[in-house]
């Protein structure tokens, strides 16, 4: 059975990252899968190349946890599409996940940029 709750970042870095990106994207309002995928790419200046297909299981997972909810709607160019929106629970999760992400980034940064004057060991 799929696990509930937030998996530890170090175990599932990429998946967790994708989750938080989706949540962040949805803060701007409901969107369908296509929009989300493009939004993530665009907002990361195309650094994060998401395979669009992997987005859907992630969406499903988030919905399963109750962080986002979905409904069928009509897209900008008049096509039927499944829209996702952030739930209050998801909003709280986003804050939490963002904090964890910041902590992680800070930790990684401390390691990657050590004090400049440390005597080198050979």
């Amino acid at each position, binding site marked *: 059975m799929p696990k509930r709750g937030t998996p530890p970042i170090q175990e599932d870095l990429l998946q967790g990252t994708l989750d938080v990106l989706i949540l962040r994207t949805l803060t701007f309002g409901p969107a*369908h899968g296509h929009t989300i995928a493009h939004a993530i790419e665009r907002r990361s200046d195309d650094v994060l190349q998401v395979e*669009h*297909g*992997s987005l859907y*299981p992630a969406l499903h*997972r988030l919905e399963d946890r109750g962080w986002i909810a979905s409904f069928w709607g009509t897209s900008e*160019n008049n*096509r039927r*599409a*499944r829209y996702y929106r952030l739930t209050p629970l998801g909003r709280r999760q986003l804050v939490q996940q963002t904090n964890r992400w910041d902590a992680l980034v800070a930790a990684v940064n401390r390691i990657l940029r050590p004090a400049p004057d440390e005597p080198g060991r050979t």
Partner: protein
Amino acid sequence: MSWRRFLRRARWDAERAEELRSYLEIETAENVSRGMTPEEARAAAHRRLGNTTRIREDIYEMNTVRMFATVGQDVRYAARVLRRSPAFTLVAVLSLALGIGASTAIFQLIDAMRLRSLPVAHPNALVDVSIETHGTGRTGRFTSRYPRMTNPIWEHLREAQHVFEGVFAWSPASFDRSTGGASRPVSGIWVSGGFFETLGVRPSLGRLLGPADDRRGCGTPAVVLSDAFWRREFAANPGVIGTTLPLDAVPYTIVGVTEPRFFGLEVGRRFDVAVPLCAEALRDPADVQLDRRQDWWLDVVGRLAPGVTLARANAELNGLSPALFAATMPPNYTASDAKAYAAFTLTAEPAGTGASELRSAYSQPLWLLLGIAGLVLLVACGNLANLMLARASARERELAVRLAIGASRWRIVRQLLVESFMLAAAGAILGAGLAASLSRALVASLATADAPVFVDLGADWRILAFTAGLAVLTSLLFGLMPAIRATRTAPGLAIRAGGRGMSDSRERSRLRRGLVVGQIALSLVLVAAALLFAGTLYNLQHADSGMQTSGVAVASVTVRPEDVPEASRAVFFRDLVARVGRIPGVEGVTPAAIVPLLGSIANDTVVLDGHRMKPYPNINVVGPAFFAVMRIPFIAGRNFDPTDTPVSPKVAIVDEAFGRAYFGTPQPIGRGFSFDRPADQPSPVWRIVGVVRNTKYSDLRDDLGPIVYFADTQDADPPGPSLTMLVRTAAGQVPTEPILRAVHKAAPGAVVTVGRLDDRIDATFQRERLMATLSSFFGVLAAVLAAVGLYGVMSYLVARRRTEIGIRLALGATRLRIMRLVLTESTGLVAVGLALGLLLTMAAGRAVGALLFGLTATNPWILALAAAGLALTAVLATAIPARRASRLSPTTALRED
């Protein structure tokens, strides 16, 4: 993940497909608007999205309860595998069905007799009131199967108690519907007025008995029929209400029929009629038990009032005991009896499961049989484990491939277990069907002509749980180890070994040998048990009773006061005996107060020189022909003769044990003794005039003890309405018709039963017969299963050593040598198994000791016979594979590699 989504995952998937399609459309449209051709746009969109099927599978997987989905797969897979090897499946299911069926059948009986509550309202609040004698004993006349109370005690208790919401007395009794001629026995119960109300039994027709029906001098008493009796004898005719039913020549008015589920209070029996206690006074006005303070024949049951605990009930019963026993003191007790009686107290204990003499007689045998059936099941499991191991070897490659491509070990173990469990479940279902008819046959085998047995065998949760538990347990027993073994092989090795089971076969064949050793050991226990019980039955049937029972018939005659007034009964019976004696073919006939070997007992306390002696001698009152009819030889002195009359000096004939017990000599001719009597009653001195050989008295299983015979011609008391005669005929036939004619000429209303003494005695061996039959069945079954197991293992070993045997043959070994090779191997296994089995048998022997007669559990002949029988079976089981090995063609065997 929600269950709802799990159950509707197909629809969910369709929705996802649509969602992905919508992505593709939007992306394609955007691509087109960027200037691509539609084909290019679509292809690019697909590239962008990735593999849609894969995505859907991922999501589908997230929606499944993985365990369930894969178990479903396992079940389907296992069903396919089992279908592909029908012979294996059939053998497995059948042997399990036999084992599980037998165990369940026996458990059903235990459940019905021991565990299940009575079919009445709130049976848990019922308590049985009995007498605590504080190490002393009760004195008096004990009749009925539950002689716990006298009627005066019951009446006093009824008035004095405050702890019961309702309380009643009852007693099982046999009635006779016949109004003359052959007897028509009816199984009845005497009940006090509160019986049905206290139990909460409802009528299905008419009304039941109430307090108004049970008043002293009850006029024309009412009778209630059981539903079964009403259907059987009256074809369920509602018109019987208000009609008359004669019981023991007393007319009763039928007032109602009980609800069908109520069979009475006695587990193992079923009542036909319930009659009020007050009617007892009408049965034989000369001998009314109701007022007799030393006639023990009633059982008292109460329903605790709300809020009253058992402890409180006991305290109150204890408190009212002194007054109760003082008020009901029997009049002609000796001083010591009276002292003991005054100290009695009443106690109560839970009675929710009802009374049963069957229970005490059959509890131990049934638990033992359950154990035996369990062992058989274990042996069957051993076979299946062996088969599963063999199959696992054969499927090594398949399993290895699955392990290699990423299946987890647990996954494979689970799949193999599912196979085992499906086999066990099929076995259990078949076994449950088998158990239904088996348990019915078992019940039928407990019944005798005189005592039909009724056990309500309806299934309840206990039986279901038992069967299901057996299925799970057996599947683990025979499936778990092979499954774990099968996955232990490193996949690479197994695949390289080309599916020939090379990798760990040494370890696995050790396991298989171990299983066979265990099977042989258990089988020996079971075969020995079978021989012990068969031996016990044989010993009983051929036990020396000191007399010759074959060729003797037992005839009982009960006369009605209208035919034979009480005053002329003695003369009538004397004439009747003479008339029966004149029937052609009859060699001798004698009245007897006690028919030997059928369980009846009369005894008393001998007093010598003012000392009360132990043990109590058994007593019989007989005619002079008794010793000739029963072929009991005289050692010394004379037989009874016509000079022994009520007024002549009292004489007695004793057996040798009597002389040894009280006079220190086997031939105490001329010595006198008397019995313990109250001071105000005459206590005549009995003079010993004859000594006969020792005989058994009430039971063939008993040791020889002191017996004293009195002459019926010296008996001054008027006889009761019944006479029992022992009739020896030259050809050993049962002269029913002539006796009926002889009786009816004089007393047309008399009721007569005639039967062979040997048949009656045989009926007392019911328990031994049951044990002998069933344990023999199980013993043979176990031996066959063990033989099949041995055959399987030896065949497997021969197959595995084909190459070696081929080389040996090629190098010049004779076929005989090869056969010996195989036989030696199996002999080793059998020897270890038998040795282990002997130890087990000795250890288990203690459990059966009490059920044996004439031999002990460690009887060397029995053990040797069992071991020899099993060894022979084992040799036969090995002979086939051994022959096969010796017939091997070396070239073929070698070419196969």
